[in-house]
């Protein structure tokens, strides 16, 4: 029995995009970075959060009386009324969810033991066989719950299930580094090479990330690089050039996946009542083609998406 607990905010059975073959993708909560373009904001904090689907809220007030912290108030706007949650008062007790009659309130984040989570992903095992798939742990950042992730990887590997990690590469602990080493494949995000700009856009410097990347490369760990392309943030020719030059030297890098900016995450900011700070346009098709050609010039196998 393994009772180490971790917090998970989503599980997809049958993903075609998170690594080779058909995958079960587990999204862990908690991330050391705060990328301005983050499309999974519900993955940032390490505790459960209330999800508010405003369209369903009928402003009945049941949750207001149900909240022991008095964190919920009624908000009356031009388009009608709905509740709002004072997130600094919210303790995540989730009592409000039970009182909501419409389903407007829900929860991001659930705790699982390693065994419980393994039983859930194992249900897809037959699909891995023919497709050469497996489990992908993403998030959030999987090294952020290092002890849990390590145990989970071990459990999968004991059962001959391939494990990929979708990681930002930022970890400073010995256990976090172990997590990266023990996975079969890393989907390694590279958000920019200029340390200062990296701090501005993500909240942390990229020095540790680059160091980890080089060390893992030296150890021969299979790596697929994921490059989020966010116009105005990391798509300058200088950054792209520096990135391509670095990657061209890394022998463990099997492929580079360009991840063009998309707006699918917007709705989750609304659900968390957070502001969406970014105001950029998704990449045009021409620009995507241009970028592909750019990386190909460096002899790198490159594609759009994962």
């Amino acid at each position: 029995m393994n009772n180490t607990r971790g917090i998970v905010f989503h599980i997809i059975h049958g993903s075609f995009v998170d690594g080779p073959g058909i995958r079960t993708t587990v999204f862990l909560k908690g991330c050391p970075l705060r990328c301005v373009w983050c499309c999974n904001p519900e993955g940032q904090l390490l505790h459960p959060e209330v999800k508010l689907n405003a369209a369903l809220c009928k402003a009945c007030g049941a949750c207001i009386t149900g909240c022991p912290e008095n964190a919920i108030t009624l908000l009356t706007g031009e388009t009608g009324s709905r509740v709002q949650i004072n997130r600094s008062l919210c303790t995540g007790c989730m009592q409000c969810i039970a009182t909501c009659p419409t389903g407007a309130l829900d929860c991001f984040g659930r705790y699982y033991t390693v065994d419980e989570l393994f039983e859930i992903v194992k249900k897809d095992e037959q699909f891995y066989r023919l497709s050469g798939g497996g489990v992908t742990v993403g998030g959030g950042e999987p090294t952020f719950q290092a002890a849990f992730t390590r145990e989970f990887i071990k459990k999968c590997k004991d059962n001959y299930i391939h494990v990929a990690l979708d990681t930002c590469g930022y970890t400073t602990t010995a256990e976090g580094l172990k997590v990266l080493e023990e996975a079969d494949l890393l989907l390694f995000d590279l958000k920019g090479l200029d340390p200062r700009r990296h701090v501005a856009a993500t909240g942390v410097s990229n020095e540790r990330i680059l160091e980890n990347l080089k060390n893992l490369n030296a150890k021969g760990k299979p790596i697929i690089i994921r490059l989020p392309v966010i116009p105005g943030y990391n798509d300058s020719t200088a950054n792209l050039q520096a990135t391509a030059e670095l990657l061209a030297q890394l022998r463990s890098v099997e492929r580079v996946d360009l991840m063009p900016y998309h707006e699918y995450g917007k709705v989750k900011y609304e659900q968390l009542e957070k502001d969406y700070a970014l105001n950029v346009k998704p990449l045009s098709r021409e620009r995507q083609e241009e970028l592909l050609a750019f990386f190909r010039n460096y002899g790198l196998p490159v594609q759009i998406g994962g």
Partner: protein
Amino acid sequence: MKPGALEKIKKLRETMLTPPEICVERAYLMTEAYKESEGEPEVIRRAKALDKILREITIGIEDGELIVGRGTSKKRGGIIAPEINSRWYLEEMETLSTRPWDRFAPMTEAEKETLRQCLPYWKGKALYDRWCARIPKDLLKLHGIVQFGGAYCANNQYYGHNSIDYEIVLSKGINGIQKEIEDKLAGLNMAVLEDVEKYHFLTAMNIELEATKYFARRYAALAASMAERTPDPGRKSELQKIAAICSRVPENPARTFHEALQSIWFMYLAIMMESPGPGLGFLRIDQYLYPYYKKDIEEGILTKEDALELLALLYIKVNGIVIPYPMEAAKVFGGFTLTANFTLGGLTRDGRDAVNELSYLFLEAEKEVALNSEDIIIRVHKKTPDAFVMKACEVARALRGKLKFVGDETVIQQLLHDGKPIEYARNYAITGCNSPTVPGYSLDLPGGLTNIPLMLELALNDGRSRVTGEQIGPRTGDPRNFKSYQEVWEAFKKQVEALIPACLLFRNVDKQLFAEFLPSPIQSALYHACIEKGRDVINGGTAPYITTAISLGGIPNVGDSLAAIKKLVFEEKKISMARLIDALDNNFEGYEDTWRLLQGAPKFGNNDDYVDSIVNEVILLLSNEVGKFKGFAGAVSNVALATITANIPMGFMVGALPDGRKAGEPVADGGISPHRGRNISGPTATLMSVAKLDHIRATNGSVLNMKFNPDTLKDEVKMRKFVSMIRTYLEAGGFFVQFNIVGSNTLREAQKNPEKYRDLLVRVATYSAYFVELSTELQDDIIARMEFREVY
């Protein structure tokens, strides 16, 4: 395909995209023939009627056609069959061109007059009238509530789902079959009454076969005369060839690929004109045509391109026949499809991989045609090459779905379970929407779309409908007093036991009446045992291989509802039985908290054993209950998990359910598709929920619809994943899956601008239809179904 051929295909295809016309000639000729033959044995009257139709109906050859023969007097014509159900034509004649869907081109005044003249003859004689008279009055009212389409005659359909063996006509020709009839006739003993029946049956078959030969000769003559008149030398030689082929087949054995195609097309037409019904198709056509193809290619008289062109032309021809349905039936079978099956791939009779070059050509031809009546079924066995499944998936992607994938391992087990020999089982084809059957040997008729959620509602309302208040089932007690899950289950079981006999009655009386008044000697000629036994195919000619199915609708809703009751009422005690019933009575109004709790209960389609095992128990309960009774002509009764589009009318008849579905909303589509919007865990979870069910006990098949965003299949790597996902599902015990590969944005756009999307084919329930021809409700239903979008 050759450039000229491609253009021609495109042009001919266009004619199939215009609203069909109504053909009144068959109705007129049928009526005249019956007036002339009163008092004669029914089977002889049948034969004389087909004889008259085939000799007198207007014929025509379209520009560019190489396979000829129309099923009606029109290019794309609706067949009127007053002998099955005459009353609705008179009632709905004026609205056929204006009704919300399944619309026809307006009829001329003269055509309407013809119908007004001949339809009244059938009052009291049409099969539907006889059926209504034969069903006990108090049970008759349940048709259209508990069961939809239980009587084919009510739907204006013959039993087209039969699975004939075209090899019989290809190898023997009609002449060869007639020789067997003669021999059989010569051996009859007229002192034995049964032999007298056989005499009339065999005589009728002979008349119909003779008439089919005559019909082919009419086409030979027409082609020859057109050849003389045409100024185009290329077309002249084509017409001369057509004339030569039509004067040779189906009378004689086919010698070439082209002859074989023309021969089966004439047989198909003769059957359609005698017994127009959806589901009649071409079975394992890549198998029985292959020897002709191979020989012609080897002899250098046929190229791959020629073959491709002929196959495309055949697909187009299939779309030239339409069966008009009364409005009530069109709700259930909407979309003008004939589901003419073409079953490809799978195993050979002796257990080898059956995929051949022709299997691929059929796929390639479909890519060019992509109309709605040709129905492509891909049999997938472990031995089936990936290349073939990949090619099929590519075509499915190009066609936004359409193709059906079935699992050989599962189907073969089903047929063995039903008592068929292994070499029969391996040779199965899929007819109609989802029914496995053995060409030439067995009759496995589906039908009777049965409202299982209603039965649960009755258990939760003391036998009364929550919609009408009417007492429909037995009184099983005030559900507020149920003290355990077992009591709920027992009440449901009692409702099932009480209502299934009526459902079987509708089906059996229907078959009995077809056998008595509208048998099908021409179809019987293409079964191996019918001549020998002297019995019609509907009348037990294929014994002992006969099954009659009931199609169970809304099983996922029943499973979800029972799981919610079990968990929330009796295990977690979060809702009292009384509160649940109050909530259902009020359609959850004022009970939003209860509704919310119910919504959160385990739902089928997420690979959750808690609810999936209950779904399976419901299937087993019904399979056992239905299996207790032998049907007409000794048929084994079995079940399918299919609703076609009856999930919508079924929903109208059912109030709020404990699964959180509100009154009047459609129940789950397809048959075993999770209720829309509830499968939120990803595609493999949905597939496994379905694959783990005991499909062997649902021998007549099942339907799982899944919607995929085209983005998820955009390149070869993803397509490979898709292929392996389908294979894993089928090898893990799945029976059937079909896909809608189209974004909901496209569909919304099509609702707004139907004219731009006339050729937008989507899978509706178990078959494909033109999206824009469907009702708004059905369109909304399709859009609302779960879409697997990858945004993480």
